[in-house]
């Protein structure tokens, strides 16, 4: 691979960037399709939560009303946006795992030496992973609908940008982590110190007022967790409403994590510098 010629026109550069985007999307799609078990695994995890966990805590007598809900709901309805968030979180981390794998196998070097800005390559990788996440999220919503937890068509449509934004944010977090993790074995640490705390210390499983009943500190930690805001963004969108605060926090976290990932992958400062 060599650098781009200096006289390349802007349109050619744009076409080049798009080719890279398509290639990365294609590669991610191939990888996803090649791992059929991954879709099944991605669906089974939240379905176990929905069917087993939520049934146990069904709250047949109804959960108290919190926005965006306008009336009493069962726990199954409450938990679905949180489980969509769970899919996005696990998939974001899975992308990070695959990047660590790519680095170990050497294919990442190939990618990062492409004659394109580093941030663009990372962005392409992020978009590709996020699109896979969105597909998985909608596959889960379809199964949840078959299970009896349904939303309006407007809700499904309106949730698309929310799910995509949340997927980007969590994918960016995965990218950032992947720039920090040197070996595949360290991924267990990500599970313990990132995925589980993020998921459990959020509004995915319990409403914030319920957390506040247990401890105000717990509630404050949940409020500070960007995953809470990603889940709330999805929850409101599925009910045809916009949660601007959750949207702003999600996009803000995306900017921070994305910036961190670009810094982490900067050969002069990030991982490369540390390796040297």
């Amino acid at each position, binding site marked *: 691979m060599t650098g781009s010629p200096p006289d390349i026109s802007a349109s050619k550069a744009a076409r080049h960037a798009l080719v890279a985007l398509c290639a990365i999307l294609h590669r991610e799609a191939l990888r996803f399709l090649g791992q059929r078990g991954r879709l099944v695994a991605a669906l089974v995890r939240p379905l176990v939560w929905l069917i087993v966990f939520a049934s146990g805590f*069904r709250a*047949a*007598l*109804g959960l108290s*009303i919190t926005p965006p809900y*306008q*009336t*009493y*709901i*069962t726990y199954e309805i409450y938990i679905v946006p949180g489980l969509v968030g769970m899919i996005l979180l696990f998939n974001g981390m899975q992308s990070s795992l695959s990047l660590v794998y790519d680095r170990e196998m050497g294919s990442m070097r190939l990618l990062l030496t492409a004659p394109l800005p580093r941030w663009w390559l990372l962005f392409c990788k992020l978009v590709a992973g996020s699109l896979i996440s969105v597909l998985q999220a909608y596959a889960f919503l379809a199964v949840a609908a078959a299970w009896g937890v349904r939303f309006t068509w407007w809700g499904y449509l309106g949730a698309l940008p929310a799910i995509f934004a949340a997927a980007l944010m969590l994918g960016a977090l995965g990218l950032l982590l992947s720039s920090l993790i040197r070996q595949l074995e360290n991924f267990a640490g990500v599970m313990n110190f990132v995925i589980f705390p993020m998921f459990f210390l959020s509004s995915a499983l319990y409403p914030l007022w319920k957390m506040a009943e247990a401890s105000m500190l717990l509630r404050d930690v949940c409020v500070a967790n960007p995953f809470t805001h990603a889940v709330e963004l999805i929850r409101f969108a599925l009910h045809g409403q916009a949660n601007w605060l959750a949207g702003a926090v999600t996009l803000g976290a995306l900017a921070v994590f994305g910036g961190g990932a670009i810094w982490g992958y900067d050969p002069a400062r990030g991982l490369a510098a540390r390796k040297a």
Partner: protein
Amino acid sequence: MGPRTRLAAILMMTALPMEASAGEIWVTNEKDDNISVIDTERLEVVRTIPTGERPRGITFNADHSRVYICASDSDTVQVMDPETGKILHELPSGEDPEQFVLAPDDRHLWIANEDNAVTTVVDVETRQVVAQIDVGIEPEGMAISPDGKIAITTSETTNMAHWIDTATHKVFANTLVDSRPRHAEFTKGGRELWVSSEIGGTVTVFNVADQSEKGKIRFAIKGVNADLIQPVGFEFTPDGKTAFVALGPANHVAVVNAETLEVEDYILVGRRVWHLAFSPDHSRLFTTNGVSGDVTVVDVATREPLKSIKVGRFPWGAATRP
């Protein structure tokens, strides 16, 4: 069509049905001594009107120019002008009036006096007690047949429906029902009588012609203890084919096929659902939820709860005003 014309057209399209079906649901708040008036289209409380102590039963007269309110702890039935919200006068109701029913003649109010074990008949024009009829202990539910010939009082402790001849004011039959009967309604043009039993957890259906039991409706909700299933108020759709039954602390309204007496669905509403009222066009059902202090609005066609509206403390009765 320009954008303004299009906007005007859309506004007209949305405004027309509002005018066609707008009405009010009047809800008595037992602990707040007032009435919350809900707009059936905007789905919000538009007025709060003070009443006597512990308002429970509520009903309008035929042309909706008067509203009668059982002010239980004031031992009176209050007559209110619904336009102004002013109490016009009070009727002698006997002690602790809880539920009542206005006869089809629009003149005689049949009142269950819980503490006195009597049913009081009041002439709303002369404001005089016409009769007091001894019934079982703790009478509560009141119903009157569409032809006005039979009145029913249910007594909570005696566990009976008492059948009263309205011409003679005599009890001509007593039928046992399950424990703590709360509410009674005639249906199918007066051929059937339904009585809900709160502790028994059933609704008993009688053939009016011979007071024989036609069937009994039982309820079971996944994940809800059977003890919590306590049927209280119920309402029929205008075609008489479907009944909605409030199940008290089970926080659900059952949808019952009135032909087969089978439960078709359960709708999750607020805490301790007590009585029900339809919007004037019968497209929405409003449930009073005592413990959660709100009213849940249910879409009758889809059987989906739409919204729960905060009202006063312990909402109890509900009545429709077109």
